[in-house]
């Protein structure tokens, strides 16, 4: 009697497990076919004029943030930055970064709005990332965005200059920033 009940329960479980496995396989096959069809028939809109949907935007952005976190652990940042580093960093920022990332009261270059994902204004980037994380973003760039890996053409000291300026940026007023730009290049005006 007990043995028969046990056999019945075991058979029921096998049946359920089989159905579950078949369900998982079916979902996998359908998912794989949909994924391949998306690639093969151009179903995902890669034009930059249509921003990513919410799911893609979320997935890309959080993949980026978590990748940077994972890869910045062994970067030892300096305990602080000197005024000379901030000044050098501003100079480099004006030359390399401002066209895509703007500044207090200053827009990005006009053509930058045509990029997707849209390069962010970085006024408060130092509040969103640690110095080590900013260093990794600058050195290694960001895949599937327009952010280059500056480590290829800039020295480590120069990379830290960028970080020094980004750390100072939240405390620079639009008027101060305008004065710094004017001092660097008197011809430079708002776009």
């Amino acid at each position, binding site marked *: 009697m007990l043995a028969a009940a046990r056999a019945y329960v075991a058979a029921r479980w096998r049946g359920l497990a089989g159905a579950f496995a078949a369900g998982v396989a079916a979902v996998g096959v359908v998912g794989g076919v949909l994924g391949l069809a998306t690639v093969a028939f151009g179903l995902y809109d890669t034009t930059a004029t*249509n*921003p990513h949907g*919410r799911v893609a*935007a*979320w997935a890309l*952005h959080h993949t980026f943030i978590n990748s940077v976190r994972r890869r910045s652990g062994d970067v030892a940042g300096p305990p602080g930055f000197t005024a000379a580093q901030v000044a050098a960093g501003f100079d480099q920022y004006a030359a390399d970064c401002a066209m895509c990332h*703007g500044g*207090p*009261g*200053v*827009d*990005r270059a*006009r053509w930058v*709005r*045509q990029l*997707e994902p*849209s*390069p*962010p*204004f*970085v*006024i*408060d980037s130092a*509040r969103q990332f640690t110095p080590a994380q900013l260093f990794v973003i600058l050195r290694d760039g960001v895949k599937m965005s327009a952010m280059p890996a500056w480590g290829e053409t800039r020295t480590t000291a120069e990379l830290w200059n960028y970080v020094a300026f980004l750390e100072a940026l939240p405390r620079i*007023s*639009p*008027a101060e920033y305008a004065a710094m730009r004017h001092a660097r290049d008197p011809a430079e005006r*708002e*776009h």
Partner: protein
Amino acid sequence: MLDGTAVIRSLSPLPLLLALAACAQPDRPHWPVVGDAASGRVWTERMGCGSCHIIPGMENATGLVGPPLIHFSRRTMVAGYLPNTPPNLVRWIKEPQAVAPGNAMPNAGLSEGQARDIAAYLYTLD
């Protein structure tokens, strides 16, 4: 005894009451449509607005440089000193440096139409 018909009959004014409650919502300006809100949402994303502003319902719009744009359709002031009307909002979006010289929000070279679309989108933020 309470039968099903009685219950339904007693609930029948409910939709009407709900509709009245929705109409009676206070402090909700009903602006004329100033532009195309769907286009405005795209422009808002492409102009990078979310790197300085929290925008409800927009992924990655988490900036804390300027004020969050939550409840924008019910905001009283734009730029801290202009009443939040469509013409004022459109002007602020289009030329923030002319409206409040030296503030941190840049002129982005938007056309009148783009600024109106963005304003229409902001007015969908209840």
